[in-house]
């Protein structure tokens, strides 16, 4: 409210008893001033006079005729004033309408916006001036259900809409079209007056009127006169633009364009649109900019992958993730891509006519990991680690890790190679000298392990390799061994690593046992010229087999052997010791040569060599008779000794001690693996796996049937597969065979009259 120079027109208010004509004559001048010249201000006395005049008129009870007789209490007067005001507004717009007729586009909008400001400011003022009318008469009318009677401000808006806004719009939606043209100019890159757009757009919002609740925001006018045509225009604009753009630009460029456009539209809402428009506008843009071109994007995806176009992949992902059906085709393609990459990488390793049998485990594992790493990074970087893409990666990796050129049709080759690689890592003399590197390498093994289908094959190879590392003392570090076992345990559970842990327990018990035996012997005997250490290994936990033949224990070690047998029996009576000569080793000191050497031998080599304490030449048959070592193995044992020039084999089957043996090293390692053993190993492991699987399947069936009592054939097979596939992928014929075995053993039976249903036999 201003204070300065109001005209003197409002000094003399009409008397309290003034009638409508007199009252309005006074008021209309005030209203006019407020609506048209408010910028010149209005002083307080003038305002008070006007206010009082409204009050006096509304409280006057002398007025007849216009009051309803059925109303009780104070009579409320105001209808006449209200009508006068209504009429005033209609009159008010006349000159404005004439003015707008000659205006177009931005000029029109500017005029409209200025008038809107002036008008709404005045209307607000009037609303306060007519407070009394609003508070009593209007309220009463509305309370009685007359929803088309409004407070003065609202009345002003309703009149604006009816007598100013709609008439302009009627002319080819002149206002809305002007707005849309302005927005299009902005889309085309011109700078426009956003404040102007905002003012006009939000006037549309203000004009929406809910008759039931005039205070509530109502978007009818906004939607009809702006939002709907705006969305239509947007669709047309972007349809045309995207088609034209794609006709002369690459998909990569289009992705950038679409991304920019979507961001712009989002900003547009912030700048001058109602937030309720966001959903529809954005979804329309997504429709036109993304969905319409999704085929093309899907098809271009492979090329982006092939050329590692990370940023484009990110963009394509971000865009297509905005439409529900957008990503699935990408996930499928990505899965195929990764699988292809994995297969190609291994095929390249094997090469044309290459040999899958001689592939180096490390090279194999590195190749698999390389493909995984690269694509895993793509998932993280370009696809924001989205679960669907992660699943596609996993699916593809599971495929090529288990089945590739190196594995052929064998499902056991990959677990074997990966287990062998883990063995190499955990051995002494591995190049990964630093612990951290080793730990990282083991973690990478676990990455592949996760994808293995035949985890039991890995387990069996791993167990075999671990047992070798332990009994030959070539494990790189206990810490790393323990770390690997805990990783496997975490992945597959306690049962999976139970055996492995027991092996470590045996090792540490054996160390104590060796010490306590040594101590006891030094107390009781003083003739121990042999250093003896022993490992006592639980039969069920170690994948070791005793020699398939007899072995004559050489007299040189027989005393120690007997003493240990007795000592062990006193400690653990009733336990049976089986001596694994085929895994034992010895160190022999030479005293038949000028230079003293230490020969590191297997026990078989030792048994052969000690024979030469008493003989200088021996025949194969004599050696065989003296040792009982199977001839197939014996000849290889001898061959190694001959090759090392310890023995001389000049005549067939005749072996002489070489009196001229010489070596640069004092410690001579003769204990090299025998070929037959190496070859046999893999086959034995696989045989063991097969046996284990048979029992695993049977046990699973029994467990399931015990719980379910009866089950259909197919359901049972599915259940077995789902329960067992974390260890290996069972073949259906194997499951059926297990079912047959259990039928035969009468753990289960066919239900009478239903050959497809089995029942548990308690």
């Amino acid at each position, binding site marked *: 409210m201003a204070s300065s120079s109001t005209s003197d027109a409002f000094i003399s208010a009409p008397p309290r008893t003034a009638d409508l004509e007199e009252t309005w004559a006074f008021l209309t001048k005030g209203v006019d001033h407020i609506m048209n010249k408010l910028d010149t201000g209005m002083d307080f006395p003038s305002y008070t006079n006007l206010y009082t005049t409204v009050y006096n008129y509304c409280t006057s009870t002398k007025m007849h005729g216009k009051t309803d007789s059925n109303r009780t209490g104070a009579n409320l007067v105001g209808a006449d004033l209200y009508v006068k005001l209504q009429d005033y507004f209609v009159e008010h717009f006349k000159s404005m309408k004439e003015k707008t007729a000659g205006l177009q586009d931005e000029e029109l909008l500017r005029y409209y916006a200025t008038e809107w400001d002036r008008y709404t400011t005045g209307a607000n003022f009037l609303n306060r001036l007519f407070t009394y009318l609003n508070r009593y008469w209007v309220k009463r009318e509305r309370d009685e259900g007359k929803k088309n009677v409004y407070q003065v401000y609202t009345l002003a808006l309703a009149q604006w809409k009816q007598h100013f806004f709609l008439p302009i719009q009627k002319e080819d939606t002149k206002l809305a079209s002007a707005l849309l043209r302005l927005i299009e100019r902005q889309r085309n890159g011109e700078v426009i007056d956003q404040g102007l757009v905002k003012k006009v757009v939000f006037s549309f919002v203000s004009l929406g009127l809910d008759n039931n609740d005039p205070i509530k925001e109502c978007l009818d006018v906004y939607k009809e006169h702006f939002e709907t045509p705006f969305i239509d225009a947007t669709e047309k604009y972007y349809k045309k633009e995207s088609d034209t753009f794609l006709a002369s630009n690459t998909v990569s460029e289009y992705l950038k364009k679409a991304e920019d456009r979507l961001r712009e539209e989002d900003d547009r809402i912030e700048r001058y649109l109602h937030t309720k428009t966001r959903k529809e506008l954005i979804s329309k843009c997504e429709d036109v900019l993304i969905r319409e071109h999704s085929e093309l994007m899907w098809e271009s995806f492979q090329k982006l992958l092939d050329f590692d176009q990370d940023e484009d992949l990110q963009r394509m992902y971000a865009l297509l993730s905005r439409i529900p059906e957008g990503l699935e085709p990408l996930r499928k393609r990505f899965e195929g891509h990764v699988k292809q990459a994995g297969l190609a990488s291994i095929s390249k390793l094997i090469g044309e006519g290459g040999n899958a049998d001689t592939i180096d485990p490390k090279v194999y594992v590195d190749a698999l990991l390389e493909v995984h790493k690269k694509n895993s990074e793509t998932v993280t970087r370009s696809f924001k680690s989205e679960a669907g893409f992660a699943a596609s990666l996993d699916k593809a990796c599971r495929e090529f890790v288990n089945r590739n050129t190196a594995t052929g049709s064998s499902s056991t080759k990959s677990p074997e190679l990966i287990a062998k690689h883990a063995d190499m890592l955990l051995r002494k003399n591995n190049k990964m000298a630093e612990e951290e590197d080793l730990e990282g390498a083991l973690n990478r093994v676990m990455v592949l392990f996760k994808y293995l289908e035949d985890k039991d094959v890995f387990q069996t190879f791993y167990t075999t390799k671990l047992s070798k590392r332990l009994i030959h003392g070539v494990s790189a570090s206990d810490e790393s061994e323990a770390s690997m076992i805990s990783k496997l345990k975490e992945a597959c559970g306690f049962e999976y690593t139970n055996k492995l842990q027991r092996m470590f327990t045996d090792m540490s018990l054996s160390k104590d046992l060796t010490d306590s035996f040594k101590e006891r012997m030094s107390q009781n005997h003083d003739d121990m010229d042999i250093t003896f250490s022993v490992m006592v290994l639980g039969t069920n936990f170690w994948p070791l087999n005793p020699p398939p033949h007899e072995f004559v224990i050489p007299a040189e070690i027989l005393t120690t052997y007997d003493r240990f047998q007795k000592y062990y029996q006193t400690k653990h009576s009733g336990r049976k010791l089986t001596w694994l000569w085929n895994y034992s080793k010895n160190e022999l000191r030479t005293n038949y040569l000028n230079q003293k050497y230490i020969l590191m031998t297997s026990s078989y080599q030792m048994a052969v060599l000690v024979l030469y304490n008493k003989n200088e030449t021996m025949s194969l048959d004599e050696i065989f008779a003296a040792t009982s070592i199977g001839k197939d193995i014996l000849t290889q044992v001898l061959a190694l000794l001959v090759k090392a020039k310890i023995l001389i084999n000049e005549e067939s089957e005749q072996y002489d001690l070489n009196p001229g043996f010489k070596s640069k090293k004092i410690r001579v390692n003769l204990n090299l693996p025998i070929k037959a053993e190496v070859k046999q190993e893999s086959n034995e492991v696989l045989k063991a796996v097969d046996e284990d699987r048979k029992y695993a399947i049977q046990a699973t069936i029994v467990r399931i049937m015990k719980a379910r009592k009866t089950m259909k*054939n197919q359901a049972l097979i599915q259940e077995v597969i789902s329960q067992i596939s974390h260890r290996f992928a069972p073949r259906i*014929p194997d499951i*059926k*065979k297990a079912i*047959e075995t259990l*039928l*035969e053993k009468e753990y289960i039976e*066919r239900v009478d009259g239903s*050959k497809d249903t*089995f029942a548990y036999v308690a």
Partner: protein
Amino acid sequence: SEPYTSARALALFEKYVDADDSTAIGPVGLENLCADANIPMEGAMPLILAWQLGAKEMGRFTKDEWVEGTSNLKISSLSSLLSALSDLNNLLIFSKSPVKSNPKIDPYDRTTYLSYAKDTKSAFHKLYLFCFNLAKPEQSRNIDMETSAALWSVILSPKYPIMQEVLEYIGEKDGVYKATNKDLWTMMLEFCETVDPNLQGYESEEAWPTLLDEFVAWKKARSP
């Protein structure tokens, strides 16, 4: 022919009784008996005889089994024995219509026969299952594949043409299938009853023993 008397039945038993074991007719006695009565050894009739007498062992009838069995059927001559066996052979193995019975002139008591004729399927099942138990050594759960193949060729092949092909398959995979357990025995009949020679009626999803799954795969591979 002469009417039934227990004495005549007993006399027959004595005629074929084992030279070393007076309590039973052995394989030699059975062979002679069949030869004298014109009962072919290679068909199903010896098995039907064992079934009818409730024999516990293959190729051997104890005196008790003989006496009780012949008395039930009222058989005391070789000719009435032959008609009883060939009646059942025709009815169950060759699926012929039942013979007309007239108790006054029937060569033996056809009461049991007529009860079989009412439900030949169930009678055949009984005979079939009997054969498994007859051939199975007491301590074993299985019969060896050679024996079961021989039995199938006699009992199932005449009735079910597909059986001949299954036997051909088993023969080709010599040594792969070592024994027949009760489930396979039962399912073999089920298979013959439900699957026709063109493999109509076979569903790989059903719980057929692996031998039969593998047979089907073999047959499909053979005749594309």
